[in-house]
């Protein structure tokens, strides 16, 4: 079913290399790796929410290492200030001018560890730069590099001294994935090896190739019927009885974008409903606010979404 131009095939090959490189870092979770790669190709940002020690940071670092470019890494703490992220303007006495010192945000891949530990003020500085692809310091705007991706991790267990992201802020992340515990055989392997081999130091995708791949994703065809399907799914989340706050229109947009990237990863130049189904939970689960009753009944957003999936007919 691999159909498309030779360029697409090469692009698919590059994307495959990227995925393979990531899979070396996070074994046994091919799906997570695939989503992470797709989010990168769809110009999105990724939220990794999981218990400590399953490899969130490893994945983020592996992605950063696989793509040629700079890596910015920020460990979020309660006393982290917005300027620690964006950078500061310093007065140079010798020249008598102000000089901008870019912060860690000025990188291709930005890893934000434990984003929920920073104060809301700092969080929102990060999220705004994610949305606008630029940073404004002292009235001057500085564009962020391209490609640009934020991988944020957060730890749901240690709630003490954290500022969990409100739903509106989560909406800015294209997808959220949980890595989860590795399968037993992989874990055994891990124990034997004393840790995964560190991600390759040599990036497998150059910056230009990455931009090329991203452009390719934009040209992937989405038929009207698939768009209708996305619309039906998104609207179904708003009408579902267990959901207090459904998916936003932005969620729909990002669902289409990520489905495009997934199709490109499969070497297709058109989107199938299968692509939409594949990324639906990753894109929508972290945006849904369930009702109190649903939460107390132990319903997860992923359950609601799979219920919606099985109730929505696939377009013809």
């Amino acid at each position, binding site marked *: 079913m691999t159909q498309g131009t030779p360029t697409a095939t090469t692009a698919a090959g590059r994307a495959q290399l990227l995925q393979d490189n990531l899979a070396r870092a996070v074994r046994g979770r091919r799906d997570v790796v695939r989503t992470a790669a797709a989010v990168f190709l769809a110009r999105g940002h990724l939220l990794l929410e999981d218990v400590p020690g399953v490899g969130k940071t490893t994945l983020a670092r592996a992605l950063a290492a696989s793509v040629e470019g700079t890596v910015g890494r920020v460990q979020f703490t309660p006393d982290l200030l917005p300027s620690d992220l964006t950078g500061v303007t310093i007065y140079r006495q010798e020249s008598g001018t102000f000089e901008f010192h870019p912060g860690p945000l000025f990188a291709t891949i930005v890893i934000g560890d434990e984003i929920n530990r920073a104060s809301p003020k700092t969080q929102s500085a990060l999220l705004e730069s994610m949305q606008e692809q630029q940073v404004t310091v002292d009235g001057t705007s500085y564009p962020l590099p391209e490609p640009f991706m934020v991988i944020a991790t957060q730890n749901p267990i240690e709630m003490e001294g954290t500022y969990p992201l409100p739903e509106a802020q989560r909406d800015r992340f294209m997808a959220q994935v949980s890595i989860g515990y590795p399968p037993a055989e992989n874990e055994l392997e891990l124990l034997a090896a004393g840790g995964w081999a560190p991600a390759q130091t040599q990036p497998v995708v150059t910056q230009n190739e990455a931009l090329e791949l991203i452009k390719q994703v934009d040209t992937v065809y989405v038929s009207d019927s698939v768009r209708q399907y996305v619309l039906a799914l998104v609207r179904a989340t708003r009408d579902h009885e267990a959901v207090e706050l459904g998916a936003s229109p932005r969620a729909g947009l990002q669902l289409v974008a990520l489905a495009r990237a997934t199709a490109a990863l499969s070497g297709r130049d*058109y*989107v199938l409903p*299968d692509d939409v189904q594949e990324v639906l939970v990753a894109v929508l689960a972290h945006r849904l606010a369930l009702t109190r009753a649903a939460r107390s009944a132990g319903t997860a957003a992923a359950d609601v979404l799979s219920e919606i999936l099985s109730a929505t007919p696939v377009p013809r």
Partner: protein
Amino acid sequence: MSRRLAALAAVLAMTLSSALILQTLVVPSLWLGRTMLCVGVVAVVVTLIRTRTQSAGLPSLAGFAAGLLAISAVYFPDEALLRVLPTPATIEAAADAIPEAFALMRTSFPPLTSGDGVAFLVTTGVVLVFVLAEMLGVGAFAPAWAGLPMLTLWAIPILLGAAVSPAYLVAAAASYVVLIAIQARDDARYRRRPTPQAVRTTTALMASALVGAFVLAPMLLRMPVPLRVHPFYELVGSSTTRLDLGLGLRDDLVRNNDAELITYTGATPAQVGPLHAYTVEEFTGSDWVRGDGGEVLTSDGQILWPAPLDGVALGEQVDLEINVANLGQDRLLLPGEPRLLRLPADVQYLPASDEAVAHIGGEVSYDVSFLPRTLGSDALSRLQLATDVDPALLQVPETGYESDIAELTREVVAEAGAETPYQQLLAIQNYLRDPGEFIYSTSIAAPTTPDAVWDFLNDKHGYCVQFATTMIVMARTLGMPARLAVGFLPGEEGAGGVVNVTAHDAHAWPQVQFEGIGWVRFEPTPGVQAGPPPVYAPETPGAEPEPSSSTTSSAAPSEGVSTATPRDSSTAGGTSAEDEQRRRSPWLVSLLVLVGLAGAASALARRHARLQQTDLHERWDHVLRYLERLGVDVADSRTPRAIRDEAVALLDDEAAAALTGLADAVEAAAYRPGITSRPPDEQIDAWVDAVVESVRQIVRERSSARVGV
């Protein structure tokens, strides 16, 4: 592919058997061979292209183009380049042929026996019907719709009331049903059972169609002309020679069939002229009244002619042997010239009405000789009309419109510059024969005035009785003794010099009495029905459409009584504009036809694309119902790919490959950009069959395994 060819053959059979019914309207020798040739060319081209492409409209368009070439080569080879390729001159010739053909059809009585233009029209129509039916029935997969073009062929003779052979109906209907059956064969396997709602809708539609047919049909038949269908023919069981022209001028002419009624030998039809049976003198304004016999002359061996013959020389004697198959009336048929009748027993001659009364019936044979008068225009111009005549011969019915008729007659005569009685009569005859003015028609419009002649002069549609009566009344307004003769046209010469006269030849014509020579026939009925006028009364050379139409428009009785204003409103200025329009209209029509064809083609292409998609989905649904038996989840929330992935594990390799191909095709049809080429029908059918067969086998094995346990 063989299915498509079979469907094509069915369309061809349907078109040809429908075309054959046109022979009741136009004699087949005129068009049948050429039409077969052209349709054959189209069929060959369409077949060749259809076997090489999946396109719906392309083969039909190519076939249509080939048909146009064939028509151009067959009908207009002289104007065509290399005798095949149409040139502007071809189109000019075609444009000229069409109005000619229409004029001929308007003024003649079926079946037409001449006219290349008519044959050209028939061939073009049949080719067009074939192309359309093929495009709908084979190309667009809409076999039922292919009946519509076929119906247009049937509509023509049926609306004209012609007798159509049931054999052709059976052949055409059978081909039509075969076409539908062929095209529906495959779809039937995938069709769902009709829903109760569909059944209800169909029943309601059928019921309303039936009610509509019963309620509407009588209403339609009661509609006034022109919607009313008038019968050209009436099938009669016997072929009795009963001359009943319905001498009322208000009646439509009901024609008998073309059974042979009379045969004669001894002379050609042209020599004999019309055979007359009886004459009538008294006209009421709407009907002729037959008088009683009067003086009877029983004679043998003497010249039977109701007038002295001192003013004319008689020609050589011509002997006729006349045989009447079944004489249903008591008048013998006689040539309209002085004759010598060897009277069988019980035959009387009535000089006043110039009739031979025979009190016999059944098959009658008799010999009659006649001595043709040498009549010429010069001689007739010098002759005066008879003066000492029955006053009934001069009587113009008093209807209130006699002065209008008289005024029109004076204008017609003055316009032609006629002075002598003969010239005046010629002017009247040729005024009525002008095809630009009067049109031969067997149906008569509803009366608008008490005077049927005045109605005819305004309506300008009628048959021989109207033409003859009008000429008589017009002549009488000029004081000429005239009467109506009723009989038969001279018929057609068959094998061995035997001339056949059929019921079609029933005719009526005016006679005018000249001093010294007696009754002289004139022929105001148009040539398409009555043949050429007598040699002594030729149509004047100045009778071309242009001058005569301007003549008649000024001569029309426009300044008559207010209630009877003629509708001829064309002026001399309007004529040239009309001419121009007539010249341009074929182009306009061709353009409209082309635009229409293009629109239809694009609509068909869209329909075809949609059909292909639905078709594919129907097959996919069909396969899903089988996969369901294997326990595969085929819920409509699952994608083709997901279903395929689940089912492939259960099927054998061949079926798995088939299912993969099918799922890919479904996926491509639904989600890929643009119009993608999908696998050919045969491939899809093969895939479907492979999967279905595999599932059946698995289900059989499972059930036998269960039994074994």
